[in-house]
């Protein structure tokens, strides 16, 4: 979705794990997490069986609100929104993660279990679940689990989970319009490829071999209907 930043927003309150939704109504203003809502209708050449499958996935609810909030908070840490090209929440990451986890059975357990690990670790360290500790405490935990070279056995489940969330966040972001802009991706448009730009070749100290180049398509003649002589030489 190449929507303007947070055109339609979804927002969820950061509620304590133990408390019900009603109890969280008292949460201080500003303790909300907002993200761009992704569409729930898609049309991209599906078969009926595929449409049915997508409908079922959208109808299925898998994550609790608490889990979704935790995902949102994590994605936001991984790719924050304080950037001209927007961040994870602008790109609707929680909706994407929710969908893809439902779609890919193998992700369900690692994400659910990862969130539970994260909460238990936060409670042990700071006395509250991950979304209800303060910003500095959250970052302190991330600093422990964001680097796969850390060998502490206690942290391994957290490290695995964080790596997974980093993968999902980056993939979810770079497959949106914001991500395309951030990367500078230029393709997926009709064009006429005529080789590596000269300045790029120069920067890499490479050249096309002249004999090779001589065999390549002359793009000024691409619309002239091909014909050959009997010796297999192209004559048009």
């Amino acid at each position, binding site marked *: 979705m190449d929507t303007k930043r947070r055109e339609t927003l979804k927002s969820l309150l950061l509620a304590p794990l133990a408390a019900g939704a009603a109890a969280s109504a008292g949460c201080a203003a500003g303790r909300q997490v907002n993200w761009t809502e992704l569409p729930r209708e898609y049309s*991209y050449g599906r078969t009926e069986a595929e449409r049915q499958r997508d409908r079922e996935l959208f109808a299925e609810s898998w994550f609790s609100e608490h889990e979704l909030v935790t995902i949102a908070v994590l994605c936001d840490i991984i790719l924050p929104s304080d950037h001209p090209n927007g961040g994870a929440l602008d790109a609707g990451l929680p909706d994407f993660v929710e969908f893809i986890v439902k*779609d890919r059975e193998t992700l369900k357990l690692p994400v659910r279990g990862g969130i539970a690990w994260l909460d238990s670790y936060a409670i042990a360290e700071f006395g509250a679940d991950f979304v209800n500790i303060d910003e500095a405490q959250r970052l302190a935990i991330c600093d422990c689990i964001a680097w796969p070279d850390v060998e502490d056995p206690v942290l391994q489940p957290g490290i695995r989970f964080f790596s997974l969330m980093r993968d999902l966040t980056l993939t979810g*972001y770079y497959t949106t319009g914001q*991500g395309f802009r951030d*990367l500078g991706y230029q393709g997926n448009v009709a064009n006429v*490829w005529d080789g590596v730009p000269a300045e790029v070749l120069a920067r890499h100290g490479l050249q096309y071999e002249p004999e090779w180049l001589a*065999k390549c398509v002359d793009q000024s003649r691409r619309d002239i209907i091909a014909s050959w002589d009997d010796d297999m030489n192209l004559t048009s």
Partner: protein
Amino acid sequence: MSANEPYDAIVVGSGAGGGIATWRLAQAGLRVALVEAGPWYDPADDSQRTQFRYPWESPRRGASTRLRPFGDFNACIGGWELDGEPFTTAEGTDFMWWRARMLGGRTNHWGRISLRFGPLDFRRRDIDGLGDNWPIGYEDVKPYYDKVDKLVGVFGTNEGLPNDPDGFFLPPPKPRLHELYYIRGARRAGVPVYPARKSILTKRINNDRGVCVYCRQCDRACSLHADFSSSTVLIYPAVASGRVDVYTNTMVRKVDTGPDGSATGVSCIDRGSRQELRISGRSVVLAASACSSARILLNSISATHSAGLGNSSGHVGRYLHDSTGASRAAFLPELMDRDIYNEDGVGGMHVYTPWWLEDANLDFARGYHLEIGGGMGMPSYGFGFAANQYKEFLGERVGGYGNGLRDDVRRFYGSRLSIACRGESVPQYGNYCELDPDVVDEWGIPVLRFDYRWTEQEINQARHMQDTMEELLEASGGILLGGKPGPERQYGLTQPGEIIHEVGTTRMGDDPATSVTNRFGQLHDAGNVFVADAGTFVSQADKNPTWTIMALAWRSSDYIIDQMRQRNL
């Protein structure tokens, strides 16, 4: 026409072989029924189009599903598993079977690598004493390769190579940057490299089809009809002739035969209504893919053909073989921090390396070719995974979070070079498919059971592939990724079936005791039944099979036309 009036020909399956047969027979004035198990398909129809879509047009961003194993935007309806249509394997067999169920079959999403077999490929037994020679040679097929080149369009170059013949080529696209690194590496290693050969129109060949606009998405099927799909290139024009009736969503269960043992038509089931249907014809051309055609024959049991149609030799299903495969990738530090421009190019590679060690003394028979991958592709699901893993090679710390990740993603974008090898296996009588007596599909047709194991030849070949890939990737300036698979993993050799080049199940030959069809794909046991897919291959060469399927299907079609003119059919 009335349902009872027999067609001149019934073609079963609309892929590469069925497409050529349908087109050629209709062109010659025959009335043809084309029976296809899958639905009608046109990549230009917006309700089916996946080309030129952005990843965010899919809720899963192009990730694979069970229904689209090669990604959400891939043009295959079908895949490794079909609901209601299982297959089984004998103990110790890990056969993989890819089935497309759609007009055009696998040609909608195939790689478009279009290689002629060479003169040596038809007589391998003469060279290494293994397997069997074909009953025909390159000179028999060459005129048909020529015709296919001109009708369908293929880019490539005439290099005068002894076993990779020249053709009527369109000019190839210029190499991309990573391919220039590969070319340089190959030159350093003394390994040849040439422009790829692919059935993609870099130049106009007629006014019906478009010219390539370089979106790199041939696997999504081209809405401009600028790459070869049987549907867009052969079947639409054949249907436009008015002489072809297409029966889509119609699954053939068997070929019906009369008292004299010759075919009278086919029995089918309409997949939508589950109604049984009989189509009568003066001849039947099976092109349902090598294994599916074998299955239809084996299921066509009658008083005259008690072991299945065409199976008096017991050879239907035998000699099933697939290409070998192995792959490896590297990180190219020189491609870090690239200038970003549109380098999509055509779907797949612009350069390749054909087999170059024909005369070397090696511990395996036959050869393989190298397919080159890399570049700044369009992000889709999976992009950004392990985003900064290459930092390890730079002595920097992998992992982290925050806006610095953006720099990592850009820095390593397009810095990967990969090679995939595709090689020739030695066909074995003991590698086969047969009907499983215990299991039927949802149409009541007995399913196939596969029994297939690689031999030392293929395993040794895979070891050689691994050494070659390491050498070439390093010569190209790459740092190898992942480990090098050893004997415990058969050197990374793909599973039988995984390369999706199923061939050999109804092989041709002059001796009816050891082959299923004659030189024209005509059953020894029933003169009006033909096979026009890769079932007739005696051996598969280190080339992808499709160009040969099409040349042979054309040759069989000409033979049918000729035999009908002579009233022999």
